[in-house]
């Protein structure tokens, strides 16, 4: 609790110093970018110690994923593709962890793969985090029976295309070297028609777009997405046309998912940091524009450019 109040106090002091930034900016003496960096660092770091609850909207794109998973009968097979690497992990890992926990709690079977070389490693981290949760540990999911990691396969969308004929062709063995036919969870799994739901966590190409174009459009798989906030706008056309049944976009999508499945975790903590960072950027944009309009007015009245202005 002490950490919370210290963090709040720091933010109040930092907020007050913004007046100094505004005055300097208006005077045509913008602050150095290193000082902007300090503001962002504080905006990201201090909320990690705060205990604040922010109002979160319930969006149809996230609720649709939750409903789909809940409506699947226990024992359904869910294919998860980890198409990202550590660079995007801060944004995608919390949603992957929350999703896997939720899938295990619903007693579904989880088949993991990756179209990015480091995706399966991210998956292993998410699995380990899920297994540390007492309510998941209680269910004691067993490797090979309740979940499996098929590893990485090169070939981008052609891997998805190949899986449309036979998963085994693309993944003859799992990442531990066990032959496909000897893995209990994969018995009876030939192609997408034997999988009840496909969840993709992606941050680029190949990613959600390729899964929609090949697995959903061509082979009729039910696909849900989880993307970085930057990639999310590109996915909205697929949502509107129902090619994608749901979408978790960035940290907000992950936080909403955690809230919807009553599994508050990292995303809700990190969302606060993102909120403060957005606030800082908005404040700096406003300051910059105030200075810009003032310098324009000054230029118009003196009919000469202002030295040192930031316009």
């Amino acid at each position, binding site marked *: 609790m002490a950490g919370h109040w210290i963090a709040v106090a720091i933010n109040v002091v930092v907020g007050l110093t913004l007046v100094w930034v505004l005055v300097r900016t208006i005077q045509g003496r913008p602050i150095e970018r290193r000082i902007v960096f300090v503001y962002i660092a504080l905006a990201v770091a201090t909320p990690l110690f705060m205990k604040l609850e922010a109002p979160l*909207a319930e969006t149809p794109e996230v609720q649709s994923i939750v409903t789909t998973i809940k409506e699947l009968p226990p024992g359904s097979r869910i294919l998860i593709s980890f198409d990202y690497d550590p660079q995007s992990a801060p944004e995608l890992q919390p949603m992957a962890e929350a999703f896997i926990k939720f899938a295990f709690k619903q007693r579904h079977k989880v088949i993991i793969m990756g179209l990015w070389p480091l995706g399966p490693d991210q998956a*292993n981290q998410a699995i380990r985090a899920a297994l540390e949760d007492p309510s998941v540990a209680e269910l004691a999911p067993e490797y090979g029976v309740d979940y499996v990691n098929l590893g990485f396969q090169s070939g981008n969308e052609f891997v998805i295309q190949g899986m449309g004929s036979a998963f085994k062709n693309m993944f003859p063995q799992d990442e531990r070297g066990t032959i496909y036919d000897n893995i209990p969870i994969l018995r009876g799994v030939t192609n997408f028609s034997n999988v009840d739901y496909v969840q993709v966590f992606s941050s680029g190409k190949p990613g959600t777009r390729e899964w929609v174009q090949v697995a959903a459009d061509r082979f009729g798989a039910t696909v849900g997405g989880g993307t970085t906030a930057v990639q999310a706008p590109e996915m909205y056309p697929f949502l509107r046309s129902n090619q994608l049944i749901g979408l978790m976009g960035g940290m907000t999508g992950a936080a909403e998912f955690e809230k919807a499945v009553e599994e508050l975790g990292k995303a809700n903590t990190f969302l606060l940091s*993102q909120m403060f960072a957005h606030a800082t950027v908005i404040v700096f944009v406003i300051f910059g524009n105030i200075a810009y309009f003032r310098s324009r007015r000054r230029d118009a009245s003196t009919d000469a450019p202002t030295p040192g202005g930031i316009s």
Partner: protein
Amino acid sequence: MRREVPLLITFITGVVFALSYFIPGGWLGQTERVFGDWITIVQAFAVWLGVLNLLKISLIKIQRKEHDWGYSVVIAVCLVGTIAAGMYSGFAPQFESFRDPETPFNFIFRNIFAPLGATMFAILAFYVASASYRAFRARNREATILLIASFFVMGGRVPLLDSIFMPIIDGTFFADFAGWIMSYPVTAGQRAIAIGIALGIMASSLRVILGIERSHIGGGN
């Protein structure tokens, strides 16, 4: 022959992939699957080619002591070190897989690669903030519309504006408004861009398949 054979391969594979989308079964489907397998194999070799090429370029730079050759030493040492750790982790009998939590490879991944990768991506936030302060101006009508839209999307996608205006506006008005921007104007714009890109890809693909565009085999028209 050095030009004709690649052009013939391009033509055959291009036609097979294009036709098999519309006629998925039969021999076309079979051929498409075989070509798909070939692509996977070729791409796997391409990864090795990339690794070896990077190593070669780095070693040459070190040997000639070119500008910033120290970075090449770091690249070469990290590359060889990680491959060695991966090999050891994969073949050592005490580990089930090279991705086991206790392996040296996994140690490198978790404690070096993952934090460095995340740091590189996180640096973007600092530059975005600095650039926004210095360059994001309402200079004309289009820039003003962009500025207003970004204000509502940045403040609405995270619960920032809803938290600030909670005493005045109940619920998640700003989040819903940001959602509306994403669902309608953004979707419309994205569709227009996607259709434009698709038409461009179709046109350039046809040029490549028909051999009109030959720059990929190292020659002009």
